[in-house]
Protein backbone atom coordinates (compact mmCIF):
# COMPACT_ATOMS: atom_id res chain seq x y z
CA UNK A 1 0.00 0.00 0.00
CA UNK A 2 1.85 3.09 -1.21
CA UNK A 3 0.33 6.39 -0.26
CA UNK A 4 0.63 9.51 -2.38
CA UNK A 5 0.42 13.20 -1.59
CA UNK A 6 0.17 15.92 -4.20
CA UNK A 7 0.92 19.50 -3.21
CA UNK A 8 -0.10 22.61 -5.12
CA UNK A 9 0.95 26.08 -3.97
CA UNK A 10 -1.01 29.31 -4.26
CA UNK A 11 -0.44 32.79 -2.97
CA UNK A 12 -3.17 34.80 -1.21
CA UNK A 13 -3.27 38.29 0.24
CA UNK A 14 -5.19 39.22 3.35
CA UNK A 15 -3.79 41.55 5.97
CA UNK A 16 -0.51 39.84 5.21
CA UNK A 17 0.72 37.57 2.42
CA UNK A 18 -0.34 33.96 2.96
CA UNK A 19 0.98 30.90 1.15
CA UNK A 20 -1.56 28.12 0.77
CA UNK A 21 -0.47 24.51 0.34
CA UNK A 22 -3.31 22.57 -1.26
CA UNK A 23 -2.79 18.96 -0.24
CA UNK A 24 -4.33 15.99 -1.97
CA UNK A 25 -4.00 12.40 -0.81
CA UNK A 26 -2.69 10.86 2.37
CA UNK A 27 -0.30 12.34 4.92
CA UNK A 28 1.43 9.44 6.62
CA UNK A 29 4.90 8.08 7.36
CA UNK A 30 5.56 7.72 3.61
CA UNK A 31 4.50 11.20 2.52
CA UNK A 32 5.19 13.46 5.52
CA UNK A 33 8.70 14.21 4.25
CA UNK A 34 7.20 15.60 1.00
CA UNK A 35 5.01 17.96 3.01
CA UNK A 36 7.88 19.04 5.25
CA UNK A 37 10.27 19.68 2.37
CA UNK A 38 7.66 21.64 0.40
CA UNK A 39 6.93 23.76 3.49
CA UNK A 40 10.65 24.23 4.04
CA UNK A 41 11.00 25.33 0.42
CA UNK A 42 8.29 28.02 0.64
CA UNK A 43 9.54 29.18 4.04
CA UNK A 44 13.01 29.40 2.48
CA UNK A 45 11.67 31.78 -0.16
CA UNK A 46 10.23 34.11 2.45
CA UNK A 47 6.81 32.75 3.38
CA UNK A 48 5.85 33.77 6.90
CA UNK A 49 2.23 32.62 6.96
CA UNK A 50 1.16 29.20 5.87
CA UNK A 51 -2.32 27.80 5.41
CA UNK A 52 -2.64 24.06 4.88
CA UNK A 53 -5.68 23.25 2.76
CA UNK A 54 -6.70 19.78 3.92
CA UNK A 55 -9.98 19.55 1.98
CA UNK A 56 -8.65 16.76 -0.22
CA UNK A 57 -6.67 14.93 2.44
CA UNK A 58 -8.25 11.51 2.93
CA UNK A 59 -6.01 10.33 5.75
CA UNK A 60 -3.67 11.96 8.22
CA UNK A 61 -1.66 9.77 10.58
CA UNK A 62 0.54 10.73 13.51
CA UNK A 63 3.54 11.20 11.21
CA UNK A 64 1.55 13.96 9.46
CA UNK A 65 0.99 15.73 12.77
CA UNK A 66 4.67 15.49 13.52
CA UNK A 67 5.30 17.27 10.21
CA UNK A 68 2.78 19.97 11.12
CA UNK A 69 4.48 20.59 14.45
CA UNK A 70 7.86 20.78 12.74
CA UNK A 71 6.53 23.26 10.16
CA UNK A 72 5.04 25.45 12.90
CA UNK A 73 8.51 25.46 14.47
CA UNK A 74 10.09 26.59 11.20
CA UNK A 75 7.60 29.45 10.96
CA UNK A 76 8.92 30.85 14.21
CA UNK A 77 6.34 29.29 16.45
CA UNK A 78 9.06 27.84 18.63
CA UNK A 79 7.27 26.95 21.80
CA UNK A 80 9.18 28.15 24.79
CA UNK A 81 7.98 28.08 28.34
CA UNK A 82 4.32 28.24 27.52
CA UNK A 83 2.22 26.29 25.13
CA UNK A 84 1.07 28.75 22.50
CA UNK A 85 -1.39 28.80 19.68
CA UNK A 86 0.42 28.98 16.36
CA UNK A 87 -0.13 32.35 14.69
CA UNK A 88 1.68 31.51 11.45
CA UNK A 89 0.31 28.08 10.61
CA UNK A 90 -3.40 27.37 10.22
CA UNK A 91 -5.54 24.59 8.82
CA UNK A 92 -8.33 24.75 6.29
CA UNK A 93 -11.27 22.43 5.85
CA UNK A 94 -10.23 19.03 7.21
CA UNK A 95 -12.61 16.14 6.48
CA UNK A 96 -14.73 14.77 9.33
CA UNK A 97 -12.32 11.86 9.68
CA UNK A 98 -9.21 14.06 9.82
CA UNK A 99 -10.99 16.48 12.21
CA UNK A 100 -11.62 13.61 14.58
CA UNK A 101 -7.90 12.77 14.70
CA UNK A 102 -6.99 16.45 15.15
CA UNK A 103 -9.32 16.56 18.12
CA UNK A 104 -8.18 13.24 19.63
CA UNK A 105 -4.51 14.27 19.50
CA UNK A 106 -5.39 17.68 20.95
CA UNK A 107 -3.99 19.71 18.05
CA UNK A 108 -7.22 21.72 17.93
CA UNK A 109 -6.06 23.56 21.04
CA UNK A 110 -2.90 24.73 19.28
CA UNK A 111 -3.96 25.33 15.69
CA UNK A 112 -6.79 27.46 14.31
CA UNK A 113 -9.01 25.57 11.91
CA UNK A 114 -11.14 27.34 9.27
CA UNK A 115 -13.82 26.18 6.90
CA UNK A 116 -13.70 29.20 4.60
CA UNK A 117 -10.52 30.14 2.75
CA UNK A 118 -11.27 33.89 2.76
CA UNK A 119 -11.81 33.91 6.48
CA UNK A 120 -8.68 31.85 6.97
CA UNK A 121 -6.54 34.20 4.84
CA UNK A 122 -7.93 37.29 6.62
CA UNK A 123 -7.06 35.81 10.02
CA UNK A 124 -3.29 36.12 9.51
Amino acid sequence: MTSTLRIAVSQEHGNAPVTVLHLKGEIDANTQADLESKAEEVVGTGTQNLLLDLSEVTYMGSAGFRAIHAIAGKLGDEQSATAIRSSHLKLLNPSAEVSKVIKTLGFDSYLDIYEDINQAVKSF
Partner: protein
Amino acid sequence: MEPLPTSDEQLQFLKQSKMFENAPKSLLVEIGGISTTVSVKADEKIMEKGDKGTAMYIIVDGQVRIHDEDLTLKYLGKGDVFGEMAALDSEVRSASVTAEVDTILFELERSSVYDILSRRPEAAKAVIHLLCQREKSIVHDVTEQSFKVRALERELEIGRDIQARFLPDILPELPGWEIAACLEPAREVAGDFYDAFHIRTINRIGLLVGDVCGKGVGASLFMTLFRSLIRATSLSGDFMGWTTSGAGLAGAQNDAVPLAVADRQTLEDSVTLTNNYVAWTHGNTSMFASVFFALLDPKSGSLVYINAGHEEPVIFGANEITQRLAPTGPVVGIFPNAEFSVGTARLEPNDVLVVFTDGVTEAADVAGARYTEERLLEFLVKTPDRLPTTLISKIMTNVEAFSAGAQQFDDITLLAVRRTA
Protein backbone atom coordinates in the same frame (compact mmCIF):
# COMPACT_ATOMS: atom_id res chain seq x y z
CA MET B 1 31.91 13.77 -33.94
CA GLU B 2 34.88 12.77 -36.08
CA PRO B 3 35.96 9.12 -36.01
CA LEU B 4 39.29 8.90 -34.33
CA PRO B 5 42.03 7.69 -36.68
CA THR B 6 43.43 4.32 -35.73
CA SER B 7 46.55 5.47 -34.03
CA ASP B 8 48.91 3.50 -31.88
CA GLU B 9 47.55 5.28 -28.83
CA GLN B 10 44.04 4.13 -29.64
CA LEU B 11 45.20 0.55 -30.16
CA GLN B 12 47.11 0.76 -26.91
CA PHE B 13 44.01 2.00 -25.12
CA LEU B 14 41.75 -0.72 -26.57
CA LYS B 15 44.31 -3.32 -25.60
CA GLN B 16 44.16 -2.07 -22.02
CA SER B 17 40.37 -1.94 -21.90
CA LYS B 18 38.68 -4.73 -19.96
CA MET B 19 36.76 -5.93 -22.99
CA PHE B 20 39.62 -6.33 -25.41
CA GLU B 21 42.54 -7.20 -23.17
CA ASN B 22 42.91 -10.61 -24.88
CA ALA B 23 42.03 -9.55 -28.46
CA PRO B 24 44.54 -9.76 -31.37
CA LYS B 25 45.86 -6.57 -32.91
CA SER B 26 43.97 -7.00 -36.19
CA LEU B 27 40.68 -7.00 -34.26
CA LEU B 28 41.68 -3.90 -32.34
CA VAL B 29 42.37 -2.13 -35.62
CA GLU B 30 38.91 -3.04 -36.85
CA ILE B 31 37.26 -1.97 -33.59
CA GLY B 32 39.19 1.28 -33.74
CA GLY B 33 37.77 1.78 -37.20
CA ILE B 34 34.15 1.60 -36.05
CA SER B 35 34.66 3.65 -32.85
CA THR B 36 33.49 7.21 -32.65
CA THR B 37 35.06 9.45 -30.02
CA VAL B 38 32.53 11.25 -27.89
CA SER B 39 33.27 13.97 -25.35
CA VAL B 40 30.80 14.62 -22.54
CA LYS B 41 30.88 17.38 -19.97
CA ALA B 42 30.69 16.77 -16.24
CA ASP B 43 27.02 16.24 -15.11
CA GLU B 44 25.91 15.57 -18.66
CA LYS B 45 23.50 12.63 -18.94
CA ILE B 46 24.78 10.01 -21.39
CA MET B 47 21.76 7.73 -21.25
CA GLU B 48 18.43 7.54 -19.47
CA LYS B 49 16.90 4.40 -17.97
CA GLY B 50 14.12 3.07 -20.20
CA ASP B 51 15.41 4.70 -23.39
CA LYS B 52 15.98 2.61 -26.47
CA GLY B 53 19.72 2.60 -27.15
CA THR B 54 21.81 1.11 -29.92
CA ALA B 55 25.31 2.10 -28.77
CA MET B 56 27.73 0.79 -26.19
CA TYR B 57 30.62 2.78 -24.72
CA ILE B 58 34.19 2.29 -23.57
CA ILE B 59 35.51 4.94 -21.19
CA VAL B 60 38.74 6.39 -22.58
CA ASP B 61 39.15 8.93 -19.83
CA GLY B 62 37.04 10.30 -16.98
CA GLN B 63 34.37 8.80 -14.74
CA VAL B 64 30.66 8.06 -15.04
CA ARG B 65 27.96 7.27 -12.53
CA ILE B 66 25.49 4.43 -13.18
CA HIS B 67 22.27 5.31 -11.35
CA ASP B 68 18.54 4.90 -11.02
CA GLU B 69 17.27 8.43 -10.32
CA ASP B 70 18.94 9.41 -7.02
CA LEU B 71 20.23 5.95 -6.23
CA THR B 72 23.85 5.46 -7.34
CA LEU B 73 24.53 1.88 -8.38
CA LYS B 74 28.18 2.11 -9.41
CA TYR B 75 30.97 4.38 -10.61
CA LEU B 76 32.94 3.37 -13.72
CA GLY B 77 36.28 4.69 -14.92
CA LYS B 78 38.97 4.33 -17.56
CA GLY B 79 38.76 1.07 -19.55
CA ASP B 80 35.28 0.18 -18.26
CA VAL B 81 32.42 -0.62 -20.64
CA PHE B 82 28.76 0.31 -20.29
CA GLY B 83 25.56 0.26 -22.32
CA GLU B 84 26.30 -3.18 -23.78
CA MET B 85 23.02 -4.76 -22.64
CA ALA B 86 20.81 -2.47 -24.70
CA ALA B 87 23.32 -2.40 -27.57
CA LEU B 88 23.73 -6.16 -27.89
CA ASP B 89 20.24 -7.34 -26.98
CA SER B 90 17.82 -4.66 -28.27
CA GLU B 91 16.74 -3.99 -24.68
CA VAL B 92 15.90 -0.59 -23.26
CA ARG B 93 18.54 0.99 -21.03
CA SER B 94 18.46 -0.70 -17.61
CA ALA B 95 19.97 2.27 -15.78
CA SER B 96 20.86 5.92 -16.35
CA VAL B 97 24.45 7.04 -16.85
CA THR B 98 25.77 10.53 -16.08
CA ALA B 99 29.32 11.85 -16.46
CA GLU B 100 30.89 12.67 -13.09
CA VAL B 101 33.71 14.69 -14.67
CA ASP B 102 34.55 15.69 -18.25
CA THR B 103 34.76 12.31 -19.93
CA ILE B 104 35.90 10.87 -23.27
CA LEU B 105 34.19 7.76 -24.63
CA PHE B 106 34.48 5.40 -27.58
CA GLU B 107 31.03 4.79 -28.95
CA LEU B 108 30.33 1.51 -30.75
CA GLU B 109 27.09 1.18 -32.74
CA ARG B 110 25.13 -2.05 -32.61
CA SER B 111 25.14 -2.60 -36.41
CA SER B 112 28.93 -2.26 -36.67
CA VAL B 113 29.47 -4.50 -33.66
CA TYR B 114 27.18 -7.17 -35.13
CA ASP B 115 28.99 -6.90 -38.44
CA ILE B 116 32.34 -7.61 -36.81
CA LEU B 117 30.83 -10.34 -34.63
CA SER B 118 29.52 -12.15 -37.70
CA ARG B 119 32.99 -12.17 -39.27
CA ARG B 120 35.44 -12.49 -36.39
CA PRO B 121 35.22 -15.20 -33.72
CA GLU B 122 37.76 -13.24 -31.61
CA ALA B 123 35.19 -10.43 -31.39
CA ALA B 124 32.61 -12.87 -30.05
CA LYS B 125 35.23 -14.01 -27.54
CA ALA B 126 35.72 -10.39 -26.42
CA VAL B 127 31.97 -9.96 -25.91
CA ILE B 128 31.73 -13.25 -23.99
CA HIS B 129 34.72 -12.13 -21.91
CA LEU B 130 32.95 -8.85 -21.14
CA LEU B 131 29.69 -10.55 -20.19
CA CYS B 132 31.49 -13.05 -17.95
CA GLN B 133 33.30 -10.21 -16.21
CA ARG B 134 29.98 -8.43 -15.82
CA GLU B 135 28.40 -11.49 -14.23
CA LYS B 136 31.35 -11.93 -11.89
CA SER B 137 31.04 -8.33 -10.78
CA ILE B 138 27.27 -8.70 -10.26
CA VAL B 139 27.84 -11.79 -8.09
CA HIS B 140 30.47 -9.85 -6.16
CA ASP B 141 28.16 -6.86 -5.67
CA VAL B 142 25.19 -8.98 -4.64
CA THR B 143 27.34 -10.89 -2.15
CA GLU B 144 28.68 -7.67 -0.69
CA GLN B 145 25.17 -6.21 -0.46
CA SER B 146 23.93 -9.37 1.24
CA PHE B 147 26.68 -9.09 3.85
CA LYS B 148 25.78 -5.45 4.48
CA VAL B 149 22.09 -6.27 4.76
CA ARG B 150 22.89 -9.12 7.14
CA ALA B 151 24.99 -6.83 9.34
CA LEU B 152 22.16 -4.29 9.45
CA GLU B 153 19.64 -7.00 10.21
CA ARG B 154 21.81 -8.17 13.09
CA GLU B 155 21.90 -4.61 14.48
CA LEU B 156 18.12 -4.38 14.20
CA GLU B 157 17.75 -7.75 15.90
CA ILE B 158 19.83 -6.48 18.81
CA GLY B 159 17.66 -3.37 18.89
CA ARG B 160 14.52 -5.46 18.87
CA ASP B 161 15.76 -7.67 21.72
CA ILE B 162 16.74 -4.70 23.85
CA GLN B 163 13.50 -2.94 23.10
CA ALA B 164 11.47 -6.01 24.00
CA ARG B 165 12.99 -5.74 27.47
CA PHE B 166 11.47 -2.27 27.77
CA LEU B 167 8.16 -4.08 28.00
CA PRO B 168 7.38 -5.81 31.30
CA ASP B 169 8.52 -9.45 31.64
CA ILE B 170 5.55 -10.28 33.77
CA LEU B 171 2.34 -8.43 34.44
CA PRO B 172 1.11 -7.88 38.01
CA GLU B 173 -0.82 -10.80 39.45
CA LEU B 174 -3.42 -9.76 42.00
CA PRO B 175 -6.34 -11.62 43.47
CA GLY B 176 -9.53 -10.60 41.69
CA TRP B 177 -7.75 -9.24 38.60
CA GLU B 178 -6.49 -10.56 35.30
CA ILE B 179 -4.24 -8.51 33.07
CA ALA B 180 -2.90 -9.36 29.59
CA ALA B 181 -1.21 -7.40 26.83
CA CYS B 182 0.40 -7.87 23.44
CA LEU B 183 2.41 -5.79 21.00
CA GLU B 184 2.89 -6.71 17.36
CA PRO B 185 5.44 -4.38 15.70
CA ALA B 186 4.96 -3.43 12.04
CA ARG B 187 8.72 -3.35 11.55
CA GLU B 188 11.70 -4.79 13.42
CA VAL B 189 11.32 -2.24 16.19
CA ALA B 190 8.20 -0.52 17.45
CA GLY B 191 6.97 2.90 18.53
CA ASP B 192 4.11 1.44 20.58
CA PHE B 193 4.53 0.47 24.20
CA TYR B 194 2.57 -0.85 27.16
CA ASP B 195 3.28 -1.37 30.81
CA ALA B 196 1.54 -2.60 33.95
CA PHE B 197 3.10 -2.34 37.39
CA HIS B 198 2.24 -2.20 41.06
CA ILE B 199 2.93 1.08 42.88
CA ARG B 200 3.26 -0.11 46.44
CA THR B 201 3.42 3.26 48.18
CA ILE B 202 -0.10 4.09 47.08
CA ASN B 203 -1.28 0.53 46.37
CA ARG B 204 -2.34 1.18 42.79
CA ILE B 205 -1.80 -0.70 39.55
CA GLY B 206 -0.33 1.49 36.82
CA LEU B 207 -1.75 0.64 33.39
CA LEU B 208 -0.05 2.26 30.42
CA VAL B 209 -0.41 2.15 26.64
CA GLY B 210 1.35 4.58 24.34
CA ASP B 211 1.96 5.19 20.67
CA VAL B 212 4.90 7.31 19.50
CA CYS B 213 4.25 9.12 16.21
CA GLY B 214 5.67 7.39 13.16
CA LYS B 215 7.27 3.97 13.39
CA GLY B 216 10.57 2.16 13.04
CA VAL B 217 13.88 3.08 14.64
CA GLY B 218 13.11 6.77 15.33
CA ALA B 219 9.84 5.98 17.07
CA SER B 220 11.44 3.11 19.00
CA LEU B 221 14.10 5.39 20.52
CA PHE B 222 11.38 7.70 21.82
CA MET B 223 9.30 4.75 22.98
CA THR B 224 12.05 3.86 25.46
CA LEU B 225 12.19 7.47 26.64
CA PHE B 226 8.44 7.90 27.19
CA ARG B 227 8.03 4.52 28.85
CA SER B 228 10.99 5.06 31.17
CA LEU B 229 9.96 8.57 32.21
CA ILE B 230 6.42 7.55 33.03
CA ARG B 231 7.51 4.45 34.94
CA ALA B 232 10.27 6.30 36.83
CA THR B 233 8.11 9.26 37.82
CA SER B 234 5.12 7.22 38.93
CA LEU B 235 7.26 4.72 40.85
CA SER B 236 9.58 7.32 42.39
CA GLY B 237 8.19 6.72 45.88
CA ASP B 238 8.83 2.97 45.58
CA PHE B 239 12.29 3.53 44.10
CA MET B 240 13.23 5.89 46.93
CA GLY B 241 12.12 3.36 49.53
CA TRP B 242 9.30 5.48 50.90
CA THR B 243 6.87 3.33 52.78
CA THR B 244 3.93 5.64 53.15
CA SER B 245 1.52 7.08 50.68
CA GLY B 246 2.00 10.65 49.64
CA ALA B 247 0.90 13.31 47.27
CA GLY B 248 2.99 12.47 44.25
CA LEU B 249 6.55 13.58 43.89
CA ALA B 250 6.62 16.77 45.91
CA GLY B 251 4.85 15.62 49.03
CA ALA B 252 5.51 11.94 48.78
CA GLN B 253 6.59 11.59 52.38
CA ASN B 254 3.57 13.34 53.76
CA ASP B 255 1.41 10.49 54.97
CA ALA B 256 -1.47 12.74 55.88
CA VAL B 257 -2.51 12.76 52.24
CA PRO B 258 -5.31 10.30 51.53
CA LEU B 259 -4.75 7.63 48.85
CA ALA B 260 -7.46 8.98 46.55
CA VAL B 261 -5.64 12.30 46.33
CA ALA B 262 -2.26 10.58 46.10
CA ASP B 263 -3.18 8.61 43.00
CA ARG B 264 -4.52 11.65 41.12
CA GLN B 265 -1.43 13.61 42.07
CA THR B 266 0.92 10.79 41.02
CA LEU B 267 -0.86 10.56 37.68
CA GLU B 268 -0.76 14.32 37.02
CA ASP B 269 2.86 14.66 38.13
CA SER B 270 4.01 11.75 36.03
CA VAL B 271 2.36 12.87 32.79
CA THR B 272 3.17 16.56 33.29
CA LEU B 273 6.81 15.87 34.09
CA THR B 274 7.16 13.52 31.10
CA ASN B 275 5.46 16.01 28.80
CA ASN B 276 7.54 18.98 29.87
CA TYR B 277 10.77 17.00 29.95
CA VAL B 278 10.36 15.79 26.36
CA ALA B 279 8.95 19.10 25.07
CA TRP B 280 11.73 21.17 26.60
CA THR B 281 14.58 18.75 25.96
CA HIS B 282 13.59 17.24 22.61
CA GLY B 283 10.87 19.62 21.35
CA ASN B 284 12.81 20.40 18.19
CA THR B 285 12.41 16.80 17.02
CA SER B 286 8.59 17.18 17.06
CA MET B 287 8.32 13.62 18.40
CA PHE B 288 5.25 12.98 20.50
CA ALA B 289 3.30 10.09 21.93
CA SER B 290 -0.34 9.51 22.58
CA VAL B 291 -0.55 7.99 26.04
CA PHE B 292 -3.25 6.38 28.10
CA PHE B 293 -2.12 6.08 31.72
CA ALA B 294 -4.42 4.86 34.46
CA LEU B 295 -4.05 4.00 38.13
CA LEU B 296 -6.35 1.25 39.26
CA ASP B 297 -7.35 0.70 42.88
CA PRO B 298 -7.41 -3.10 43.11
CA LYS B 299 -9.62 -2.98 46.20
CA SER B 300 -12.49 -0.90 44.87
CA GLY B 301 -12.10 -1.24 41.11
CA SER B 302 -12.03 2.52 40.71
CA LEU B 303 -9.74 3.97 38.14
CA VAL B 304 -8.22 7.42 37.63
CA TYR B 305 -6.72 8.11 34.24
CA ILE B 306 -5.17 10.62 31.89
CA ASN B 307 -5.86 10.07 28.25
CA ALA B 308 -3.27 12.18 26.43
CA GLY B 309 -4.44 12.21 22.83
CA HIS B 310 -4.97 8.46 22.71
CA GLU B 311 -7.67 6.29 21.14
CA GLU B 312 -10.58 6.04 23.58
CA PRO B 313 -10.24 2.88 25.70
CA VAL B 314 -13.42 0.98 26.33
CA ILE B 315 -14.99 -0.66 29.37
CA PHE B 316 -17.59 -3.28 28.67
CA GLY B 317 -19.77 -5.53 30.74
CA ALA B 318 -21.79 -8.61 29.86
CA ASN B 319 -23.33 -7.42 26.61
CA GLU B 320 -22.58 -3.76 26.22
CA ILE B 321 -20.07 -1.00 26.28
CA THR B 322 -20.48 0.81 29.58
CA GLN B 323 -17.88 3.56 29.28
CA ARG B 324 -15.47 5.19 26.84
CA LEU B 325 -12.45 6.97 28.30
CA ALA B 326 -12.16 10.04 26.06
CA PRO B 327 -9.02 12.23 25.81
CA THR B 328 -8.40 14.49 28.80
CA GLY B 329 -5.46 16.33 27.23
CA PRO B 330 -3.25 16.56 24.15
CA VAL B 331 -0.46 14.21 23.10
CA VAL B 332 2.66 14.16 25.28
CA GLY B 333 6.02 15.67 24.32
CA ILE B 334 5.45 18.72 22.08
CA PHE B 335 3.19 21.18 23.88
CA PRO B 336 5.04 22.60 26.91
CA ASN B 337 2.89 23.14 29.99
CA ALA B 338 -0.07 21.43 28.38
CA GLU B 339 -2.86 20.70 30.82
CA PHE B 340 -4.02 17.18 31.48
CA SER B 341 -7.13 16.63 33.49
CA VAL B 342 -7.91 13.42 35.33
CA GLY B 343 -10.85 11.23 34.39
CA THR B 344 -12.45 8.59 36.58
CA ALA B 345 -14.07 5.25 35.87
CA ARG B 346 -14.94 2.07 37.70
CA LEU B 347 -14.65 -1.59 36.86
CA GLU B 348 -17.43 -3.72 38.32
CA PRO B 349 -17.00 -7.48 38.69
CA ASN B 350 -16.76 -9.09 35.24
CA ASP B 351 -16.12 -5.75 33.53
CA VAL B 352 -13.25 -5.61 31.09
CA LEU B 353 -11.11 -2.59 30.17
CA VAL B 354 -9.53 -2.74 26.72
CA VAL B 355 -6.89 -0.22 25.70
CA PHE B 356 -5.64 -0.28 22.10
CA THR B 357 -3.53 1.69 19.65
CA ASP B 358 -4.62 2.88 16.20
CA GLY B 359 -2.65 0.01 14.68
CA VAL B 360 -5.74 -2.07 15.51
CA THR B 361 -8.43 0.25 14.17
CA GLU B 362 -6.41 1.42 11.15
CA ALA B 363 -5.23 -2.05 10.06
CA ALA B 364 -5.94 -2.15 6.34
CA ASP B 365 -7.11 -4.98 4.12
CA VAL B 366 -5.69 -5.60 0.64
CA ALA B 367 -8.11 -3.08 -0.89
CA GLY B 368 -7.02 -0.40 1.63
CA ALA B 369 -10.23 -0.45 3.73
CA ARG B 370 -9.59 -0.04 7.44
CA TYR B 371 -10.59 -2.32 10.32
CA THR B 372 -12.23 0.64 12.14
CA GLU B 373 -13.21 1.22 15.73
CA GLU B 374 -16.83 0.21 15.00
CA ARG B 375 -15.69 -3.26 13.99
CA LEU B 376 -13.54 -3.58 17.11
CA LEU B 377 -16.38 -2.55 19.45
CA GLU B 378 -18.81 -4.89 17.73
CA PHE B 379 -16.31 -7.73 18.02
CA LEU B 380 -15.70 -7.02 21.73
CA VAL B 381 -19.38 -7.10 22.62
CA LYS B 382 -20.01 -10.25 20.57
CA THR B 383 -17.04 -12.23 21.93
CA PRO B 384 -18.15 -14.42 24.86
CA ASP B 385 -14.59 -14.88 26.16
CA ARG B 386 -13.73 -12.54 28.96
CA LEU B 387 -10.33 -13.93 29.94
CA PRO B 388 -7.94 -11.13 28.89
CA THR B 389 -5.36 -13.45 27.26
CA THR B 390 -8.04 -15.20 25.19
CA LEU B 391 -9.80 -11.97 24.36
CA ILE B 392 -6.61 -10.36 23.10
CA SER B 393 -5.61 -13.33 21.00
CA LYS B 394 -9.13 -13.43 19.49
CA ILE B 395 -8.95 -9.72 18.61
CA MET B 396 -5.51 -10.24 17.05
CA THR B 397 -6.79 -13.20 15.02
CA ASN B 398 -9.77 -11.15 13.86
CA VAL B 399 -7.58 -8.19 12.82
CA GLU B 400 -5.12 -10.51 11.08
CA ALA B 401 -7.94 -12.26 9.20
CA PHE B 402 -9.30 -8.87 8.14
CA SER B 403 -5.94 -7.65 6.84
CA ALA B 404 -4.79 -11.01 5.41
CA GLY B 405 -2.48 -10.50 2.45
CA ALA B 406 -1.87 -6.81 3.19
CA GLN B 407 1.33 -5.53 4.74
CA GLN B 408 1.01 -4.54 8.42
CA PHE B 409 1.25 -0.76 8.35
CA ASP B 410 1.49 0.18 12.01
CA ASP B 411 2.37 -1.36 15.37
CA ILE B 412 -0.57 -3.10 17.02
CA THR B 413 -0.92 -3.00 20.80
CA LEU B 414 -3.67 -4.24 23.11
CA LEU B 415 -3.98 -4.26 26.88
CA ALA B 416 -6.94 -5.89 28.62
CA VAL B 417 -7.82 -5.85 32.31
CA ARG B 418 -10.67 -7.83 33.83
CA ARG B 419 -12.13 -7.67 37.31
CA THR B 420 -13.07 -11.19 38.30
CA ALA B 421 -14.51 -10.53 41.72
